[in-house]
């Protein structure tokens, strides 16, 4: 026979202030934990959702990132005409040779600079990345020293608004368009014409080549072909894979989140324990009465555990609500692999919220167990005689 839930609800309400304080402290711990994890998730999603599985990125064997990779012009001519590469109706292969350089730009509201990636694209470069769309201005014209800038980047850096002039390479470039890359890694880049960029930087080589395969089988074939051609000394992998590898950048943030969650979680357990011990002490006689009425020990144990979990659940819900406003707030951090800043947004995902709730329940269970056990072990006769 279990003690009705109503008993717990009423008991909790009797000690309103004490309950509220404990609930709020659990809420804060849950909120901080979800907040830090949302930072890591945001960074990971930006990288993981970048690329198309049918896009194949070719770069120099042994180069960790496009920045340190070289692809010769000869190799580019061979690569774009490989069998399995999708072609446009006019016969032009869907392939882009890119050049990637890093420039230093001052942030808005501070003289302090940060590194930003500039990518030079071949004419098919945009078609290969259909999720990238212009939201203001127009596309850059090849040969005209024009660039388009991601919206997120233009919010964070000086000289990157529509019509502004940027200085890098051999002179000034005009910002003619602003694009939105749908929260992918391209949201941290500046794009321009590859040939213009190559001549500014005296580059004889491209950084990487991106190919669109007709289907998955063709993709596998292209990869095998590139890998087996020894004279290329190139390596190929799906674009998605390349960005997934960069999610390492989120490692330190995750570690910090885990550290905070673990230690503060224990602290919150202790706080819950305190409240529950007090509840047990206040209700010593009540518990004894329940026992005399015939409620077995397990139902007392269960009842107090339920009460503790209830407190924690309410805390968890409040914690989730507290952290929701950070969802979508844009921030940036260093991606050491590309040696430039990557902009991303906090992402409070349903999964994180669920994890936060489980975390809260765990706090409730651990914090409630010892007090509940104490309550269950009480001897009714002694307790009734007390106070």
């Amino acid at each position: 026979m279990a003690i009705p839930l109503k008993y717990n609800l009423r008991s909790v309400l009797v000690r309103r202030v004490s309950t509220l304080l404990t609930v709020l402290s659990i809420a804060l711990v849950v909120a901080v934990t979800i907040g830090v994890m949302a930072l890591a998730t945001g960074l990971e999603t930006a990288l993981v959702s970048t690329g198309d599985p049918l896009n194949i990125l070719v770069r120099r064997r042994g180069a960790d990132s496009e920045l340190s990779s070289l692809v010769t012009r000869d190799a580019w001519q061979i690569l774009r005409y490989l069998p399995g590469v999708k072609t446009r109706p006019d016969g032009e292969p869907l392939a882009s040779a890119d050049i990637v350089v890093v420039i230093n730009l001052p942030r808005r509201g501070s003289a302090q600079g940060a590194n930003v990636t500039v990518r030079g694209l071949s004419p098919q470069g945009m078609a290969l990345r259909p999720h990238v769309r212009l939201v203001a201005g127009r596309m850059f014209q090849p040969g005209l020293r024009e660039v388009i800038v991601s919206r997120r980047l233009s919010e964070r850096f000086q000289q990157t608004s529509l019509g502004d002039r940027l200085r890098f390479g051999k002179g000034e470039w005009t910002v003619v368009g602003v694009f939105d890359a749908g929260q992918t890694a391209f949201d941290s880049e500046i794009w321009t014409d590859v040939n213009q960029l190559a001549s500014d930087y005296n580059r004889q080589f491209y950084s990487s080549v991106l190919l669109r395969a007709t289907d998955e089988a063709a993709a596998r074939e292209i990869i095998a072909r590139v890998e087996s051609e020894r004279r290329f000394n190139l390596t190929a992998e799906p674009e998605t894979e390349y960005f997934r590898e960069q999610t390492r950048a989120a490692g330190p943030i995750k570690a910090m989140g885990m550290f905070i969650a673990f230690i503060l979680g224990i602290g919150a357990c202790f706080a819950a324990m305190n409240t529950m011990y007090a509840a047990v002490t206040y209700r010593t006689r009540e518990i004894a009465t329940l026992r005399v009425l015939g409620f077995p020990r397990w139902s007392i144990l269960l009842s107090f555990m339920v009460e503790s979990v209830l407190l924690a659940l309410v805390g968890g819900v409040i914690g989730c609500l507290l952290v929701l406003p950070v969802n979508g707030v844009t921030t940036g951090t260093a991606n050491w692999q590309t040696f430039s800043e990557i902009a991303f947004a906090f992402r409070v995902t349903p999964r994180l919220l669920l994890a936060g709730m489980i975390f809260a329940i765990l706090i409730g269970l651990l914090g409630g167990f010892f007090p509940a056990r104490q309550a269950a072990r009480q001897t009714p006769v002694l307790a009734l005689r007390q106070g």
Partner: protein
Amino acid sequence: MSYAGFTWKNVRRNTRRAILTMLSVALAVFVMVTLVSFVAQIDRNVNEASPLRLITRHAVSLTNFLPERYRAQIERIPGVVAVTELSWFGGIYIDEARTDFAQFACDPRTLFDVFTEVTIPPDQKEAFQRERTAAVIGRSKAEKHRLKIGDRITLRPRDIPVAAPLELTIRGIFEGTINNEAQLFFHREYLEEVMGRPGVAGTYWIRVDSVDSVSRVSEAIDALFQNTDAPTKTETERAFTMGFVSMLGDLKQLVATISSAIIFSLLLVTGNTMAMSVRERIREIAILTSLGFRRGTIFWLLVAEGLLITVSGGLLGCLSARLIFGALDLGAFSQGFFQQVTVTGPIIAAGLAVSAAVGIVSAGIPAYRAASVPVAEGLRYVG
């Protein structure tokens, strides 16, 4: 019984509750002190930078190289004492996990004239300068990897297109910073050779004669190369390091937000404890008042109780953070980004101050209310 004895007795009245509260304060302070220490460590690295050192890099970014002929032109500027190239070499020593030190190609003749704070025995310095494949490494890394003079090490290139791995011989071990003795230096001549003589340098590190020369020299350098293929940006070591730090994002704000959430949650936890223990004692407090104790005295006795719990918790948190981070090899965890994090005296003092403030506020409110309950009502109170 003395006041101190009275407080001590009261704290121990419910030992379990006091200990649980103390431990949750300790854990929260531990987290806070840790976060603050990391941020402070970054600041300290920035502040350790010498005001007399300038760094010249490519104006566009660090990833662009500068021509080697710039050096002679920089050396001719009045006020320049010494110049060395430093080119970052991202090599792998044995494997990724053990590569916890940065490697730079330098000019061995002038390296120690630019980094004057670094000490190295004169015979080791000479040996390093003499041999083309010689290298020097900081003491802390030499000890960690058990490297001694005469040991050979191999650095496999990771990113830079280099024909062969670098085969180096340790000829010297230096002490006293260049970021906590955690870097390795070798001859730029050797790197140029294996790279097929591109004739480039990553950065130029310049020592000037006085603080007054700093801005004049840096402006002179940038003016010199303004209209070339490779314009330069010259800044002080401090500004240069700050640039790296700012790439990490807004760490300070993040840590401040988390810390304030923690402090607030601490207030709630200890406030709850104190409210509970005061409520149980309203009758006793009324008795104390009727015995002639002043309300003020009673108030401070209760606050002292809260203080005892929170400050001892804070102390525990601070000291354990200090011990743990003193013993931990962070370089291995963070791939060389943090060589060492010290929980300094001022940070501990701040941690204790926060604990004390939490104690005063959280005990103060219930104590004030309890102390102002009229005697008759208090005696009648059923808890």
